[in-house]
């Protein structure tokens, strides 16, 4: 075996790619990972992690402004955007370094460059200067190239005034007014951040509710909370045109009632979904099937071309780092021939949005469960009746459970309120273990915690037929 012959080559070192490479190395495969930009991918560098760092600053700022409510004195409360962004970048850098260390520790070869599949077993790499590196051969190739912000025709983003998440994460000025296009997790998190720091924020969503993948009841509560915080929200509406001026953008909106409206804002953030990084990889020539910007895969990442697999964002929704990491593990273990590998059940993947209040969910919404033909029982419990929530000063929130009336199986759980992103794993574990309401009811929840609301929402479903 030469130096450039590997058992497994992973293209992309994001939360899918680096996890795949490390797992493969642990299983004894000679492994390389090719990354064109940053170890850790979008998640670590331009997504989940730096966004959470920004939101933490906003949260602290929000609490400082509420100091009086808690009997505290805080005068001259303010912020320095440059420092907030600098902290966020430092967090990313620290974690990206950790990924580099992990790869090295597991003896994964890291190749800086842009990869292309020449054939099913051969990868060509060019470095940053466009010079070709030695060809690499691999028995197995995992494509984990991730995704990038989708742009809409006519709404070009990625400049000084019209941002995608990438510019928004390193904002150089605090906009006085902001238009966020799209109310999925990314859009809502930025809206929440800038709104908390004082930007006059407008959110526009083409579907009929914000956070449209969440349970409708949660969406409605989230919208109310955002509006109370001063956001303007237009649902069932779209942006016809964005016209960049010298220091501001003129947006032509078409609202739900058919009325047109023109809005002038300092900045626009486009968050209308993402599209897979499928270009330039030589996929078409190999016969790898790409549909709607994403690689079509089987249960374990197989693409239909022997020896070529795809995982994570490039392989389609849900676009979540933890989904990519899990797909990485099962794909590699399947390649290694380990027994008892089970395909990922999308219904067991939790989703979290770190706005204020936080939103988290796992499994089927009430509507989706009914559409799937289940006879459902729904339980609800508001934070207003939870001692810890009141003590924390966070009484706005709801836990909602959806059970199958026939088998008692937990079908879905939906939460809004403080810290719910940390709580959802309780239901995710239950769901993965195929729990029924009985085991949740028999579980002792510690007092006083916000999690008690999860217990109460389970007890509440009994006898309440939705």
């Amino acid at each position, binding site marked *: 075996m030469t130096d450039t012959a590997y058992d497994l080559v992973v293209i992309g070192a994001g939360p899918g790619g680096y996890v795949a490479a490390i797992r493969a190395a642990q299983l004894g495969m000679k492994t390389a990972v090719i990354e064109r930009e940053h170890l850790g991918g979008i998640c670590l560098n331009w997504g989940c992690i730096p966004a959470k760092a920004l939101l933490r600053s906003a949260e602290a700022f929000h609490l400082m402004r509420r100091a009086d409510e808690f009997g505290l004195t805080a005068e001259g409360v303010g912020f320095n955007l440059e420092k907030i962004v600098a902290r966020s970048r430092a967090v990313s850098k620290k974690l990206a370094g950790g990924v580099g260390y992990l790869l090295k520790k597991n003896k994964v070869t890291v190749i800086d460059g842009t990869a292309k599949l020449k054939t099913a077993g051969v990868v060509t790499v060019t470095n940053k200067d466009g010079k070709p590196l030695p060809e690499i051969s691999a028995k197995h190739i995992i494509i984990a190239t991730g995704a990038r912000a989708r742009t809409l025709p006519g709404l070009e983003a990625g400049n000084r005034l019209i941002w995608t998440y990438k510019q928004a994460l390193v904002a150089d000025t605090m906009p006085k007014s902001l238009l966020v296009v799209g109310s999925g997790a990314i859009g809502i998190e930025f809206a929440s951040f800038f709104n908390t720091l004082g930007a006059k924020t407008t959110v526009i969503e083409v579907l009929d509710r914000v956070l449209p993948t969440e349970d409708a009841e949660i969406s409605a509560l989230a919208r109310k909370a955002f509006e109370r915080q001063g956001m303007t929200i237009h649902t069932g509406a779209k942006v016809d045109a964005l016209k960049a001026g010298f220091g501001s953008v003129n947006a032509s909106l078409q609202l739900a009632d058919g009325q047109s409206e023109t809005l002038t804002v300092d900045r626009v953030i486009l968050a209308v979904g993402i599209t897979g990084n499928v270009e330039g990889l030589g996929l078409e020539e190999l016969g790898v099937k790409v549909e709607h910007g994403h690689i079509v895969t089987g249960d374990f990442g197989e693409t239909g071309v022997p020896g070529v697999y795809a995982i994570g964002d490039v392989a389609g929704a849900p676009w979540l780092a933890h989904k990519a990491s899990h797909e990485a593990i099962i794909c590699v273990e399947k390649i290694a021939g380990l027994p008892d590998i*089970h395909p990922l059940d999308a219904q067991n993947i939790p989703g979290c949005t770190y706005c204020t209040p936080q939103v988290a969910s796992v499994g089927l919404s009430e509507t989706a469960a009914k559409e799937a033909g289940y006879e459902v029982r729904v339980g609800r419990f508001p934070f207003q009746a939870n001692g810890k929530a009141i003590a924390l000063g966070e009484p706005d929130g709801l836990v909602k459970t959806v059970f199958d009336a026939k*088998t*008692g*199986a937990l079908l879905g759980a939906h939460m809004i309120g403080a810290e719910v992103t940390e709580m959802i794993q309780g239901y995710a574990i239950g769901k993965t*273990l*195929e*729990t*029924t309401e*009985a*085991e949740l009811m028999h579980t002792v929840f510690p007092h006083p915690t916000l999690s008690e609301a999860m217990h109460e929402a389970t007890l509440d479903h009994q006898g309440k037929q939705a």
Partner: protein
Amino acid sequence: MPIQILMPALSPTMEEGKLAKWLIKEGDEITSGKIIAEIETDKATMEVEAVEEGTVGRILVAEGTEGVAVNAPIAVLLAEGEDKSALDKPLPAPVVASASQSSATRTAGASSPSAASSDINANGHAAERMFASPVARRLASEKGIDLRAIKGSGPHGRIVRSDVEEAAASGSAKPAVSPGQALVPSNKSALSGVAMPDNQIIATYEQGSFESVPHDNMRKTIAARLVQAKQSIPHFYLTIDCELDALLEARQRLNMRSPKDEDKAYRLSVNDFIIKAMGLALRRVPKANATWTEENMLYHKHSDVAVAVAVEGGLFTPVIRNVESKSLVEISRQMRDLADRARRRRLAPHEYQGGTTAISNLGMFGIRQFDAVINPPQATILAVGQGEKRPVVKGDKIVAVTMMTVTLSCDHRVVDGALGAQLLSAFKSHIEEPVTMLL
């Protein structure tokens, strides 16, 4: 550390059995190889040998207990130097199958299985845990599926929802009879397949006009398998008359040549010839030497012929293997040995499992002709009547000929009419010209 003696699996599919008899008592010194107990399975009573040596510390399952699960501890041995106090350390409780707990047919005087397990639980030890997801458990109890019959596909073999759903869809969790084996059904309705409940049947007869005898394992197995056979196998029957005079003459000549030396002496029976003829007929018509499975047809390379042997309280069908290549004397000796051990219920499971066809001979009772029920997974069975002198037209004359009528029951999924007829005529030609059996 005391050594547990576990309920052995005496056949690949055995799940539980009756602890028929203990041959040891507490305090006995035992060495490896000593026969310690008799276990009654669906068909046979088997002796269990000790593997370890030591002093019998405690007998956990009382003699006569039915439905003792395979691998449940049945006794505890103390190693050298250990005294009885070592027994008070935690030991897992025996697993007692629920089927036997619901059984009303427990042997008088035997301690009940539930009592045996509660003895152990009184010492604070939990019963063995069954790993199944909560949803799987609930679905199984709703659908009346026995989780123990399901193989889990989850982590560490945990039974998950989809396993129960698949079992429900395929019916595989019900006590199916796998090739060559008999399982004791876990519920009574499967025994007989009759919808009429017991109390209704009993009410039909005048009280005191009958004696009620609980079914033993053999009776349960016969009932379950024959119901299954008649319900699932499309039977048809072919009858033919065979002339027997040439065979009887050959038999007499061969038997006269039997060595006087007792070890080498033989006495061929008509049945030995019938077994050999059937084995050879299957070789001549190999398509009939087959077994039905839902996916495939299994064409067998050897003629393994099962022979029904009536015993007190039922019957066994020991199998003579590779009949096509065995001599008549070998067949005869083996048959004698198998029949003898069958009557004493000392057959090992592998001796009565499998087989590609079967022979049932009721000629000795004066039966002229009858139809036999196929013993799954075999595809055919030959019912043999008595040899008798009958008037037969030969040329234009009526002559007295020794005739034997045989009827072949065929599984139509495997053997079509013409194929069955070919097999039967091949059999007839071997019987009528016994010299061809030498080929």
